[in-house]
């Protein structure tokens, strides 16, 4: 390797190859060719493509974010509607409960009043009957006492005086 390169080098001027101006036109020519090709590849094809992809990605991300935002708002609205429905159902139920309670109380009060009236009537009648019975019983007791007294008097050999016995029995009964 050393020999061939040394031979090649011998043909050129010594020192820095960079300062060998004989090669400059060649270098500049091929550099310009290269730059033109790179320009086409990079600036004309690759950059619009990459720029497009980046813009598209930005758009997609923005759209996705907007969609997510929208869905979030929808979910929130749905939750609100659900809560409102629940709330109104609860209020409705409370109203129904209150109405039913009032209804029941009214019915109950009416029934109680009726029952009270009936009980009142019944007890008045009963008292009347009891009074009758008592009166009857008292009469019966007087009768029995009179009869017994009369029988006792006659058994003892006396003559029963109806008026005296009557007076005696009445006095005893009162006593």
């Amino acid at each position, binding site marked *: 390797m*050393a020999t061939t390169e040394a031979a090649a080098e011998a043909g050129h001027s010594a020192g820095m190859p*960079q300062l060998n101006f004989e090669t400059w036109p060649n270098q500049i020519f*091929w550099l310009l060719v290269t730059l033109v090709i790179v320009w086409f590849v990079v600036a004309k*094809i690759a950059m619009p493509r990459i720029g497009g*992809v980046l813009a598209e990605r930005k758009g997609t991300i923005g759209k996705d974010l907007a969609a997510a935002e929208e869905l979030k708002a929808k979910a929130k609205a749905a939750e609100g509607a659900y809560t409102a429905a629940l709330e109104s159902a609860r209020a409705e139920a409370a109203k129904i409960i209150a109405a039913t309670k009032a209804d029941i109380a009214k019915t109950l009060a009416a029934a109680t009043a009726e029952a009270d009236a009936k009980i009142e009537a019944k007890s008045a009648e009963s008292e009347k009957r009891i009074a009758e019975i008592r009166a009857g019983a008292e009469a019966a007791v007087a009768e029995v006492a009179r009869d017994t007294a009369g029988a006792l008097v006659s058994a003892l050999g006396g003559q029963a005086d109806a008026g005296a016995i009557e007076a005696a029995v009445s006095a005893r009964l009162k006593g």
Partner: protein
Amino acid sequence: MAEEGGLVIDPMHQFQIVPLGGGDHIGLFTVTNQTLWLGIAVLVITLLLLVGTARRSIIPGRLQSIGELLYTFIHDMVEEVTGHDGAKFFPYLMVLFTFIVTSNLLGLIPGSFAPTSHIAVTAVLAAMVFLTVTLVGFYRKGLGFLGMFWVSSAPLVLRPVLALIELISYFVRPLSHSIRLGGNIMAGHAVMKVFAGFAGVMGVASVVPIAAIAAIYGLELLVAVVQAYVFTILTCVYLRDAVGEAHH
């Protein structure tokens, strides 16, 4: 080298431009080793940016990711440094960066050839930037473009002196612009060659220069990217003079 005996190191030999077809005459259209590596750079760029993005997927693959990374990197650089008016130079800067970074990195393949190590190449690139900046500056601002040499914030007596300095610095720009890139790449490659020469004659102790080559290789990878970046961002800075509103 061995048959010549002793330590013979020719670090500049690797930059020799030789015709691929043999012989040593180099005409305008002669295909040389440099032409070959320029062509390989074109192929790599095409593969990376055209084949890689051919599917235009919303969810990018690996090659497309590299292309997109490159695109957004240069795009942000142009927006930040040159300003909004510089946006139309985005393709130009993209071409510059892509070409330079590809050539630099391909040049680091052992046995390859780095076109960007040649002043002829970097000088053309820098001259193109210089011409673009000057023409665009005069086209956009007319004679007002010369206002950038007249530092209105300085005391009046100093202004002519500063104008002279600014003018000189303006014309030195393409020189520094091109030699910075070419010199960096050339120096790195030459240093590695020098160490490789040491490794050839040091026997067992060669591990030292070989380790040094490995370390310098890592550094050169960094330099390859950073110099492409520097060249591009300096172009942005120069373009800002031509299109931007304020100066300094």
